[in-house]
């Protein structure tokens, strides 16, 4: 009863996804927005614009997501999408070293050109292709995993160290299994400074709610609370 009626402050956050082609940007968004996954998804052309609400204990964040295409020829359009963005997800593929290099370029560009307070999360995707997808997931593709072994090419330490140096949030995710996906967006929502939020509904009851927020959140089938430790902040 408490939180369903109480108007929480709601604000919109502009978020942009950047990263090399085929690292799984659209799949992450699709998992977050529709809790869905498509095998062999066709490449994004241009950019897609999606919205999704994220309920925090104290407020509701409405993400306005720009999912950009990763191909080189679209790079010149990127400023249009990250301009005024409050958050950015820079995605790389855990199994592809060049994608981390590209991700580092994006981080540098964002730090140079995007709005100063932008929250950047570095996300290593395709965790399902590695061996260390903990706590017994990889349900469907078990057989595949056994024979292909570990496809990981970028160690957690390497990426984590880099993220800490640059002051980025850091996650390893699997859009396929849903592992850690909602956590990324929740962490970003939490990391956005209160001051930078243009509240659209005025301050309402604030501290009254705590537990309810989690239940209301989009139900994603990733592991429960355990994943928090992946967060670098």
């Amino acid at each position, binding site marked *: 009863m408490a939180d369903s009626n109480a108007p929480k402050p709601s604000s919109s956050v502009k978020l942009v996804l950047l990263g090399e082609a085929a690292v799984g940007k659209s799949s992450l968004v699709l998992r977050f*927005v529709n809790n869905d996954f498509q095998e062999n*998804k066709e*490449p*994004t052309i*241009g*950019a897609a614009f*999606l919205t999704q609400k994220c309920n925090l204990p104290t407020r509701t964040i409405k993400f306005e997501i720009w999912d950009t295409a990763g191909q080189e*020829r679209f790079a010149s*359009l990127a400023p249009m999408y990250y301009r005024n963005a409050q958050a950015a997800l820079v995605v790389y593929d855990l199994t592809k070293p060049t994608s981390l290099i590209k991700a580092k370029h994006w981080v540098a560009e964002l730090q140079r050109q995007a709005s100063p307070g932008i929250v950047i999360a570095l996300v290593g995707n395709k965790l399902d292709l590695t061996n260390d997808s903990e706590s017994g997931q990889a349900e469907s593709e078990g057989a595949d995993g056994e024979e292909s072994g570990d496809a990981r090419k970028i160690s957690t330490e390497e990426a984590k160290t880099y993220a800490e140096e640059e002051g980025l949030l850091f996650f390893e995710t699997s859009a396929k299994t849903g592992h850690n996906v909602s956590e990324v967006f929740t962490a970003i929502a939490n990391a956005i400074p209160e001051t930078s939020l243009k509240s659209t509904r005025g301050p309402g009851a604030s501290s009254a709610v705590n537990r309810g927020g989690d239940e209301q959140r989009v139900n994603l089938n990733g592991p429960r609370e355990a994943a928090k430790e992946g967060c670098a902040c």
Partner: protein
Amino acid sequence: MSAENVGSSGDAAALGGERPPPLPPRPSQIQSKSSPSTIVPERPNLSSKPTTAISSMNIQTLSFPDGSRGTFSTAGGENNNSQGTEQTPGAGAASMGFNSISNDIDESMSIMSLAPTLRPPGDLESLLVGDMSKKSPAWMLLHSQSAAVQPFETTRAEEGAILTDFAREFDDIPEPSETWSDDARLKLWKSKLKHFMILSSAGKPIYSRYGDLEMINSSMGVVQTIISFYQGAKNPLLGFYAANTRFVIVTQGPLYLVAISKLGESDYQLRAQLDALYMQILSTLTLPTLTNIFANRPSTDLRKPLQGTESLLSSLADSFTRGSPSALLGALECLRLRKSHRHAINNAFLKTKTDKLLYGLIVAGGRLVSVIRPRRHSLHPSDLQLIFNMLFESGGVKAGGGENWIPLCLPAFNNRGYLYMYVSFLDVDPESERDMSAAGEEIAIILISPDKESFFDLQHMRDDVVTELKKRGHLDIIKTAAKQGRPKMNEIAPGTHVSHFLFKSRANVQFCMPSLHPTFSNLISHRRLMSLYHNLHSTIHAKHTHVKVLHCVGEDTTSLAWITPIFEFYCVAGPNASRTVMTQGANKIMQWAKREEERLFIIGGGVF
């Protein structure tokens, strides 16, 4: 049998056309001759042709399934020996007898064959004159002779053999593995009925519909060698046959585009398909970019700049392989709506227009509902073909959900720069996604602007349009019309034996057709039907023909093509449909099309 004649003579003509013209006699030879009268033309035009018939006339036994069946002759070979009608045997065309009625009636025609065509054949009515099908009641009772027999129902096994594997035509070549040796993969690759390849003039592979580029690298090399050999001789190669496989080459600046087909399309049609692929490349890169890339480094690997558009090229290629009436006719299909509804939708659309808008489209299931455009610009069908392909054939945009903002170049509009396209699919609710039958019914709003910053303006406009359409119930009207699908044949012309037709309004560059269900709904019969239409189209459009009406009788189909400056009409019926049946059917359809013109076609559209 006459088709075989037509086919081979057509082939010969086409091949002859590509050979350099015969050289004039050398001066030395002329001088050595004492008298000029002894100079004989290198090749006198032989009056006789290799034939198994007694005269050069073709003996027709199939045309009229009635009492007078017997044999009668027409100068079919003469009339149909037109350039550009390459027909490879296959795809149901093999056994087709061409029986054209043209203005220049050949003098060698027998009286018998003249009988039905003596009147000037300017309009179809004349076909009705002197109908030779005097059917006895007993004959009519034979089911096998009934006009109700559907096209392709009687196709003999060997006729359709080329299409037996058509269901697997679109499967990818498997990755190399223990079960798939290189030889087996290559064999599978060669078994595909149609290939499209694109390579740079430096020989770098850019795109191939089937097979990874490693596997087909050597074939690409061969193709490049052959093309550049002719290119070097300043005599570019346009096409050639290898057995019954046709190779057609289009050179566009630094690109070679190659179509390899066993499906029997004409060169003109294959060329149009290659042009569409080239347009897709331009749409990704723009012409100046493409030119610059190769001007600076001729050996550039174009796959990198084109990355991510392979699926667009492939979905275009596959629509050609399946057979697309829209591509064949170079025209668009509209959603059938009442005139007043369309008018109201146009007005609602115009009312909400923003300043940033260049073109606005509402599309339902790949069929146009409404267009608004500036007075001075019209939309070119080939550009719309690219947009429709991107949105409805390849899954990239639709699958993402949400709204899309896509930079693209519309080459026929302006090949030098990008426009920005806002796309929003309405009501893509998960319910209808699961239901595959609803796949052809999504409604998309497409707003195109020259301003790359105008996303939110256009988004706002979309909201306004949707509100407006909902308010007046137009959205439901569109949905209902889209769900209804194309009209059934018996709604259009009750009682006719015509099973399918294409009607193109030339002025509007739009076409309509009836539902493909149930006769042509499977992949193979659809392809047969399209092959038939391709044959009719290429025959009646062949250069230097004056054919206006073409009546073809084949073993498993009867078909009719009719062209006027206003429209193009093609229809198909079962093998036993007589001319009377065909012409009556055609006339009924024509009356329907006339009556429904403003429902079937968008005339003008909303102009601002």
